[in-house]
Every structure is written in C-alpha cells, then in structure tokens.
C-alpha cells in the first residue's frame, strides 16, 4: 500500500509538472496601449435612472458576486454586465472585485446556481461600447469600462466615495 501510494504521488507530481494548464486569457493588444502610459482606471457605471451615486467596494463586490440580487431603491433585479474574457478591464475586475481567475469565476456561478441561490449570471458583452449600450438600456444594469470610454448615456458610480481620477481610487487596470 505504501509503495503504491509513493508511486502514485510520484506520478501525480510528474503529470502536474508536465501538463499544460489553462491560464486566464492574456490581455489583448487593446489593453497594452492603455497600460503603456498612465495607469487606466475602471469606471463602475449604472443606468442613468439608477439613483445610486456611491457604493463601497464591499457593496460592489456583493452585487458582482450575486450576493445581492436586487437594488434597494426599487429598481428591481441587479444585472451585472461583464466584458468577455481577454479584455484587460475584465481581468482587472476579476482581480480587484472577484478575487478569482476565469475558472473560479465560472465555477462560482455554477455553484450559485447549483445551490439554488441565483439563476442570474453576469451577462457578457464583447466591447466597452456594447457594455455602455446595454447599461443605458437596462435600468438595473451595472458594469464597468475604462474611465476614458464612458459617455453621457450612463452614470458613473463612486466607489468608497471616490470617482475615477480621484487620488486613492482603487479600481485600476
């Protein structure tokens, strides 16, 4: 038994060392240019009809993790919008808000569904303009884009009382 266990451990170690592992998608060139200069900041955006002006980072985390599924101000269900994998903004949100990698993100929401806690997974959009467009249409939506891409059709929410550009703003790419 001991010999078998030792052999098993050796085999597993060799296999683990040799097997390629799927890491989160690397950032595409689009983000590279943004990161080359001053660090870009992420803006958390909501529909203009949403009266929320400020969220703490922990509140933001609760919305993105589907721990809270409804807005407290009668706006109904929270609709989280994510960019597709491969976007640097998404990577930043996974790191700063979710504290997960891509696999953990998928597994987390599968688990939430499995436990019957939610049927809502974040919607995905392919580009920041699509995110803005979606949020401008859907009253309960919340998402993120690089601060420089925000337009007037959506509303930027402060995080811990700070807006993008303020000293100490935490959501940076």
């Amino acid at each position, binding site marked *: *038994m001991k010999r078998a266990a030792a052999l098993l451990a050796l085999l597993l170690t060799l296999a*683990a060392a040799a097997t390629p592992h799927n890491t989160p998608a690397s950032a595409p060139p689009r983000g590279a240019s943004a990161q080359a200069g001053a660090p870009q900041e992420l803006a958390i955006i909501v529909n203009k009809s949403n009266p929320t002006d400020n969220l703490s980072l922990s509140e933001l985390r609760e919305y993105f993790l589907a721990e809270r599924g409804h807005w407290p101000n009668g706006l109904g269900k929270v*609709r989280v919008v994510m960019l597709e994998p491969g976007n640097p903004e998404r990577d930043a949100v996974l790191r700063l808000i979710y504290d997960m990698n891509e696999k953990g993100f*998928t597994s987390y929401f*599968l688990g939430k569904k499995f*436990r019957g806690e939610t*049927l809502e997974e974040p919607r995905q959009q392919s580009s920041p303009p699509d995110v803005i467009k979606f949020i401008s249409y859907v009253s309960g939506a919340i998402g993120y884009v690089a601060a420089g891409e925000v337009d007037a059709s959506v509303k930027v929410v402060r995080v811990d009382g700070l807006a993008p550009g303020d000293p100490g703003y935490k959501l940076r790419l």
Partner: protein
Amino acid sequence: MPAALRRLPALAAARWERAAAPANGMEHTFRRTALLLLCLLLAARAVAAQAAADQPAVLNADAPGAIAGAPTRRLPKRIVLLRTSEARPAETRVTVSADSPLDDYAVRREGGRLIVEIPWASVRSPQLSAEGRAFTGARAEQDGDSVRLSFALRPGTNVRLAGGFNRVEIIFTAAAALVPHDATETQGTNVEPRAQGGAGEAEELRQMRAQIAALEARVRELEDRRQAAAQTPSTPAAVESAAATAQPVVAPAQPAAAAAPPAAQSGAHTHVEDHHGAPTIQFQGFADVNLRASDEKGSHTSFALGQLDLFMTSRLSEKFNVLGELIVEANERNEFTFEIHRLLLQYAPNDYFHLGAGRYHTGIGYYNTAYHHGLWFQTAATRPFIFAFEGKGGILPLHNVGLTATGRVPGAPFGLHYVAEVGNGRASRSTLDSAVQTAVDENNRKAFNLGLFARPRSTPGLQAGFSVYRDRLTPQGFSPIPQTISAGYVVFQNARYESLNEFVLMRLASGGRVFNTSGFYTQFARQFGGARPFFRYQYTNVPHDNPVFADVGRRNGPSFGVRYDLTDFAAFKAQLDHTSRRSLSSLNELFLQLAFTF
C-alpha cells in the same frame, strides 16, 4: 434497536467490517493499478493539451443560453422583418420578427417619438406604413449594427409591447376621441375587401417564405457552429431576459402623461419586454468515473461509474423558477437506479425571502448544500463520513420533502442569512422504507430545521453558521424517539485557500436516556497552479449503546489527496484514506476519480 434505522448504516458498516487482513496479491494489484494510472494520466495530458490548442480565439457572446465564462461564438446579425397591420379599430400593430431570438431590444422615448432599437440586426423588406391611426412619420433605419424604428406618436396614444421567441408586436392604441379614422373611413377601406385581402395574403405568404428561408439558413449556421464547438466544453445556462417586466409606454399626451413610468417621464431609457413563450429547461450535467482499491478483506479493486447528475433549472417568471436534480447511478448489484434528488418550485421576490416547495437538501451544516451530487465542485474525491448519503450509511437526514425558506436578515450585520425548513424528515418505520420520505410520512410530526449563517462582506470567502434540526422518529414497535441535530461550521474559500470545518451533534432520547453522537471534520487545501493538494481529518463517534446507529461505531482518520484540473470543466482526483475503527482493524483506501461537468 429499530431495525429500520439500523439497516442503512449497517450496509456501510458491513463494508468496513470486512477488513480483517490485507488480501493476498495486493502488491500485484497496486502495481497494475499504478501502470494503468500512468497510462490514464498520459492520455489525460494529451487530451488537456489538445483542448488547450482547440480553444477558440473568439470567446463568448451575449447569447441566450451562454453562461458567464463559457466559450461560445458571437451570434451573427439577425434579419428583421417588419409588417404593419390594423386589425381592430383604433389599434395599429407593428410586427417585428427575426430569424433568431429577439430578447435584447430596447424601447425609449425621445421627445414625441417612440424609439425601438434592435441591436445586432439588419432590416429586410420593411413593410412599415409611414402613418397609422396612432402615429405618423414611422421610420425603419439601419443604424450601424442596429435597426432603429421610430414613430411620432399622436397625442393620447398608448403603446404596449408583446412578443415571443423571435417576434415582438408593438401595439399602438389611439385614444378614441382622437382617432382620425372614424367608422365611415373604416367602412371606406372595406369597399374592396376581396382585392385588399388577396393582396395582403400574397404579401404575407411572401414574407413567410422569406422568413422560412432565413430560418433555414440560421439552422444550417447553428449546426455548423455546434459541430465546430463539439470539442470544447460548453455549459448550458440561463441568461435571462435583460428587462424585468413589461411596462406600458405611454405617449407624451397631456392626459395620459401621469400614467407613464418614471423612466419614461424622465426621458431615461426604458427597456420593455414581455414573454409569452413556454418556459424552457436548462440542463447542466455532472458525472464521475472512479477507481477504488482498499486493503479490505474480500473487496476487489474496481472501476465504478459514479453518479450521473442532471441538474436543471427553468425560469417561469421574474420571481418563480424551478430547480431539479435527477440522479442515475449503479448500485452494489451493478443495477442502475434513478431518483429525483431535488425538485423545487422556488419563489424569490427579493433578497430577504426565497421560498421553495418540494424536495430539497436539508440545510444542516455547510457541506450538504454546498457540495452534493456534483462531485466536480468538491476538492476531495469523497464526502466526509458525517455527511454520507442516507442510502450509503449516512446518519443525517440530508434530503427532505416540504418547504424551505432562506434569505438575508434585513438590517442585520455580517451578511446574516436565515434558513427555515419544515418537512417529512427521515423514515424509521420499516426496513423496506426509503430513508427519504418523498411521498408519505410515517407520522404527523414534521421535522423542523432552523439556522443562521453569516457571510461578512468585510471578509470575502468566509462563512460561518449553525443550525438546529428537530424531528421525532417513530420506528415500528418502539416508542417515539425525539431527535435533535445541532450543527455548526466555519469555512473559508478563495482562489488559493480552502478551509472547511464542521461539527455535528446528534441527540436521541429513548427510554429515559440520552444518546449523543458527535462528528466533525476539518479540511484544508491550497491551490498550486492547476493542482490543489488537500488534507482532511474526520471523526465520527456513535456510542456502542446508541439505540439507532450503534453499528456505525467510531471511525476517525486522515485523508490526503490532490485535485488536478485537466480543463476548466474536468478534474482528476487522487485520495488516500486511513480510517481507524472501534473494535475493527484499520482501513486503507485509495480513490482515483475523474469528475466533470458538461
């Protein structure tokens, strides 16, 4: 001792009791196993490398049925057809149909105009009348990737939207006093009904043919896509509609303005949607394949097909949904059994109250609800013994039939949630009974379970809670036995660490005596790249004179293992258990498992 309750633990105990001495030829068995394992690992590595190479460059899309993070392709643009009809007096309908689902259109008001915008679409054959009874200046325009419909509403016009899978009807109802088309005019249009009707039917047929052609093209494209994606794991999931409920949009007419929703009044965008289609089921599968070897006398090293878990959800409305779980597995006689393990109609109006009716996983502790039949979720290959299933020697009532409610505690700190459940409880009357009383309860007393748990927002990944379960067992030929199960836990999980710690205390009162059964486990895991080694120590102690579960006895010992993720949706696990048992020899077991979701 009630024989009925003794039966199921005895099944498991019998396995453990057969371990008097290591079987002859174990060394040969393990050598063969190791060789086989090496082949399996090399094959798994090749598959993983191939999967990584086949990963599509374009990931995911805003597509119905696509789960967050699941790889899918972007949907092509939809072909949109338009038609205007005036079926009733004072009512004009604009029908928008497409060759794929229309679930993301948006409606808003800009001044006196109603705007309907359909993203990722192109318009074909717009039969849009410029003027209707309720609007003027109707336009259908291609605006980049979107189709934009706009209508200048006549004062007092009411607009509502109805639709189904790939169709939306914009229904304009003009205020009677303001309708310019009076009865005479209507009669006038009917002067030549045959000619008009014939032309209309021909046009309808032409549009239907065009729609069929578009749908056929769409089916071909989807089939191609499915073939292309056949080698990449995909996860069906519910991506529900973007909007909450259908709301009437009222034209900016002075008398009707008060009825407009706040968003419309403020000029903000309003997403209007109405679903009339039948609900659909979304499946997620979980399964596992195992190899088990032990030094238990008389046992054979065996491959084993684990559970095929068909987990399904269906949204009935914004607040109602259905959750089900069907399990197919082979028993010890190599015969397949099928069972509905969960079936719940859930009502979730807000974060504070989620009510479910049906068969559910009892909210005792953490492991039972967090990890149940989908072994892909859990780090280890096996469950802690204290949370073993009823049919496999477990002592806890892990399934129940009745009502379950949960939600946040309003205003409470630390992300406090409650759990309140009432159900039939566990069977104990006869050896022929199933442990879970799915259809008939053996007594009128119901089992209650009340619990609280906290998920403090300041410490993501931390959860702690406790629960108290009460039931009365009524085994045939014995006086009723009150049962109380107290459970508590502290768990912490994030991307790198996992720490699970739970204890359970079961109290049975019989014949003027109290019998306490205690159990706990602690498990720790750390992620290193794709591998997650883990350690678990578990302990369960049933007193030898326990009136119900004495056969279980005491068992305790460590488990070591590693989980390695072959892909995002398949994992290989290896686990070694060493279990000490009261009055029996120790038991060593090796588990190898492939667990996956699909």
